[in-house]
């Protein structure tokens, strides 16, 4: 089905070079538009553009929606809980980076 490839692949950086419409984001995350609308209402992701038909999402949204989907599916948390978990995870990541910056490379 899948063969070993040796040709060199070139990709693009999701967080910087990709902007998606609501439709594209639904396809990319395999979720319904309603789910994304709910995440926008919870403030989990923030599109630019003033109304739904002009919404434009950054590549970061893709990662957050995927995490939200998994948290909801695997842990049974509701969307407000998902929003809280994602914020806390961001904060944890920030502190983790800060800690590494302060304590030197020998401390993982």
């Amino acid at each position, binding site marked *: *089905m899948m063969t070993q490839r040796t040709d060199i692949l070139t*990709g*693009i950086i*999701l967080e910087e070079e990709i902007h998606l419409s609501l439709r594209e984001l639904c396809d990319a995350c395999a979720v319904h538009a309603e789910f994304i609308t709910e995440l926008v209402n919870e403030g989990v992701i923030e599109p630019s553009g003033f109304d739904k038909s002009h919404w434009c999402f950054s590549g970061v949204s893709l990662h957050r929606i995927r995490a939200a989907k998994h948290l909801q599916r695997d842990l*049974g948390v509701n969307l407000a809980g998902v929003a809280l978990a994602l914020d806390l*995870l961001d904060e944890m990541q920030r502190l983790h980076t*800060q800690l590494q*910056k302060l304590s*030197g490379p020998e401390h993982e």
Partner: protein
Amino acid sequence: MEFKDYYEVMGVKRDATQDEIKRAYRKLARKYHPDVSKQKDAEERFKEVGEAYEVLKDPEKRTAYDQLGANWKAGQDFNAPPDWDAGFEFSGGGYTGGFGDGADAGAYSDFFESLFGQGFQTAGPGGYQTQGGYHARGSDHHAKVLIDLEDAMNGATRSFGLRVPQVDAQGHVTTKERVLKVNIPKGVKQGQHIRLAGQGNPGMGEGKAGDLYLEIEFNPHSIYRVDGRDVYLDLPIAPWEAALGASIKVPTPAGAVDMKIKPGAASGNKLRLKGRGIPGKPAGDLYVVLTISLPEASTDKAKSLYKDMQQALDFNPRAGLGV
């Protein structure tokens, strides 16, 4: 294949109630969830727990599993006895959910497959997302890859081995190693994702193949630390370089440069070399954090120099502490 002790995996007794099992699962799922846990083997543990719960949460499967007997130990060589499941009817088929995506089907072990695999109809790549007819876009793959800071500084071509679950015609899931050669874009940051279009699961019918997302993580570096595009370096300097000022050589990821230190520098001073971090728009900076390194008083000469300082300087480093 190895016997799996699902009770041991869940950390519950064999006579645990369904409620206790559910509680244990919730707790372990939170602990090992790959989106939450920082533990290296989190994903593996999460799948193991998911598989155990898949069996123990379902009274039919649990009863069938129980009648294999309590004498089996985890890791023991195991083959399902013929007709072991006679008299059981698995109403839900092999899989009743839990792991949604077709790509995650590889989550279940051979042990599980041999017991409950029959009747399993793979959803197929992205099968849940069918958009009319039998055409469906293949599901996306996600994988984490490790690169070096230098790769992000200069750009590089790196090979990665990825484990890809594959479903054969009989519905059995195996994992296959797939080697990819990928251009690492110059300026990529830790935690960013590289999208490789069309490198995910093949689509069904006329559906397009899914994409492959590589999450970038840096190997820990022996001298640099990274925050976004900024790079931090602890730079040891001699006491006289700190006191009198100096021009010294500083390593940077792109090669050594000369840097001036002003007289009166102290430990912890942070000097910024603009644009010497990871390239990009804007490029990151290199922060040099000074640490004063003391020469050892290992020779008579060094000892006498320290004594001279002691006598000549009226220095009390604890003056600020009131002692």
